[in-house]
């Protein structure tokens, strides 16, 4: 099936070339980091995780959200999603690939990566995260590829794929739950030490992932002969709506507990992101941008008129995606370290090479996604004609 990638138009070639340039720039910056160490990043003794781990956290959510098309189609026989399950699964492959890359670029000793396998440590959540993420990647490759191949041949997928599909549904939930557990079990990091963390992660993932999927489906509809179908997009938009409402509701629950109890350990991190703490306020503009985008998205999504119109739905999905990207891809991880265990404040600002490495990894993910989508869409077009 891979040969489909080579039968491409000029526009697609330019897209891949553009992504390759970004990947190259990121790679050069990574070589710089590889020789100098993580000192070239904005991270410090106090804020010891930054942009990389935050992107990882956000993208696990995007990966997990594939379940939002797989579950209705395979468990509830919701036919409209039949055409786009492959888009969900391939998005998951690209997202998990980015997650793994973000972990690798964050390591101080990347060549010792396999120590995690050589010395398996079940009491570390990171060990389990490695297992569930790689397992999820494998599941989606196997399922996506075989179902698409069967579609190309005009036959039913092999029998052994079905059980894997059923396994992939709780597995998707597990990847984001385990990723939340990375944070939610640390004593002394009160911003993260909250039982609702996994639920919050899943709610925001089921909004941001499907929002991206809608945008991608719209793009595919515009650029190719494959139409993912209005019904599927509309059903996805309802998923985004409910998930975003629940996600915002969960944040309010956190705010209530913090500000009604007034326990400093709980309030000060929220103070830092919402209003600034002792004159330190680098994340405040980001937080409010995220809040405003969420309000805009909710307004456009809850109103059926704007939700049904392609133009406004597109804006709503963009707003949802960027709002939640800021929340999980920036503020949630960084603010957990501010203030530090001594109740003092060291702020964090990523450096230019750090940003380029981050963009490079995103470009790699979108390169994988473009290639996979190209294959999927070409096959869909062939089958249709």
């Amino acid at each position: 099936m891979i040969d489909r990638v080579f039968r491409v138009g000029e526009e697609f070639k330019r897209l891949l070339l553009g992504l390759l340039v970004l990947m190259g720039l990121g790679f050069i910056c990574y070589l710089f980091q590889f020789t100098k160490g993580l000192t070239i990043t904005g991270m410090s003794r106090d804020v010891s995780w930054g942009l990389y781990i935050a992107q990882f956290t956000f993208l696990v959510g995007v990966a997990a959200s594939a379940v939002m098309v797989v579950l209705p189609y395979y468990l509830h026989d919701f036919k409209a999603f039949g055409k786009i399950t492959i888009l969900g699964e391939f998005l998951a492959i690209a997202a998990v690939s980015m997650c793994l890359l973000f972990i690798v670029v964050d390591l101080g000793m990347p060549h010792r990566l396999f120590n995690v396998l050589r010395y398996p440590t079940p009491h570390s959540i990171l060990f389990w995260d490695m297992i569930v993420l790689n397992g999820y990647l494998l599941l989606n490759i196997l399922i996506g590829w075989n179902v698409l191949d069967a579609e190309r041949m005009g036959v039913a997928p092999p029998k052994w794929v079905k059980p894997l599909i059923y396994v992939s549904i709780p597995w998707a939930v597990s990847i984001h739950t385990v990723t939340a557990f990375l944070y939610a079990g640390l004593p002394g990091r009160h911003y993260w030490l909250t039982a609702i963390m996994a639920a919050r992660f899943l709610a925001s993932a089921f909004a941001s992932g499907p929002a991206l999927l809608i945008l991608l489906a719209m793009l595919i509809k515009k650029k190719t002969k494959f139409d993912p179908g209005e019904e599927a997009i509309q059903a996805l938009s309802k998923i985004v709506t409910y998930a975003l409402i629940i996600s915002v509701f969960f944040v309010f629950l956190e705010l209530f507990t913090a500000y009604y109890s007034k326990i400093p350990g709980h309030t000060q991190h929220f103070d830092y992101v919402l209003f600034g703490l002792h004159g330190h306020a680098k994340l405040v503009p980001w937080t409010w941008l995220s809040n405003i985008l969420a309000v805009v998205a909710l307004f456009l999504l809850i109103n059926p008129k704007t939700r049904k119109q392609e133009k406004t739905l597109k804006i709503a999905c963009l707003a949802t995606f960027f709002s939640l990207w800021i929340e999980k891809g920036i503020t949630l991880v960084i603010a957990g370290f501010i203030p530090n265990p001594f109740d003092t404040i060291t702020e964090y600002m990523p450096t230019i090479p750090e940003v380029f490495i981050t963009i490079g990894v995103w470009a790699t993910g979108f390169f994988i996604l473009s290639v996979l989508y190209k294959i999927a869409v070409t096959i869909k077009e062939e089958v249709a004609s």
Partner: protein
Amino acid sequence: MDKGKRDFLKITGACALGLSALPLVKATAKEKGPAYINIPKALQGKRWAMVIDVRKCQEQQKRGECNKCAEACHYIHNVPKIPNEEEIKWIWKDTFEHAFPGTAHEFVPDELKEGPFVLLCNHCSKPPCVRVCPTQATFQRADGIVMMDHHRCIGCRYCMAGCPFGARSFNWRDPRPYIEKLNYQYPTRRRGVVEKCTFCAERLGEGLEPACVEACPAKALIFGDLEDPTSEVRKILKEHLTLRRKYELGTHPNVYYLV
């Protein structure tokens, strides 16, 4: 693609998968490694702990700024002097409100407010850093000491997020150019790994007390085994009220402060 090619690819894939599992087989099938040598004069303990007498330290400070514990420790262990946000420290002085956030109120005596409180790894009995480490590069010894294996650490810094005491430092850059005077008796670290106080495990093995304890001119640092009812630390804890940092988090820190 015809059938032959596909089967070839499948077999190749299976072989590659098998080969990649080889290190796992090697790791699990290995023979038992060399045993430890027991030096008779080595200090033996079941739960090493430290009491820090803040008043004695204060008195010493009145006679002139004293930083002997940190100087001795950082020299012996080749701890680099890197300024600001990439600082590496095993033992250091801080104020009451930083050592015990939330405990200090506005009317605390000025003397106590300034401390100094000598801070170091608490060698917790239930260490969260050990719990979260994905490679067991940080581990707990039978005598309670929380140790680091700098050859195994992958530099993920999960332990730094896990430690509620800010006791861990990461080598963001190559530390070697920042070591003022090299001690050839102790290894240096390379960049990309986490390090911290080890309660001088290497000195205990030779029958010596930790370097900071030995260096303190005020004898404000007292080291001993909490499981030994006759030890000095046990005596002090029985006779005086002592504080532990963030005891409420349940990590069971083994450094006690006498105020």
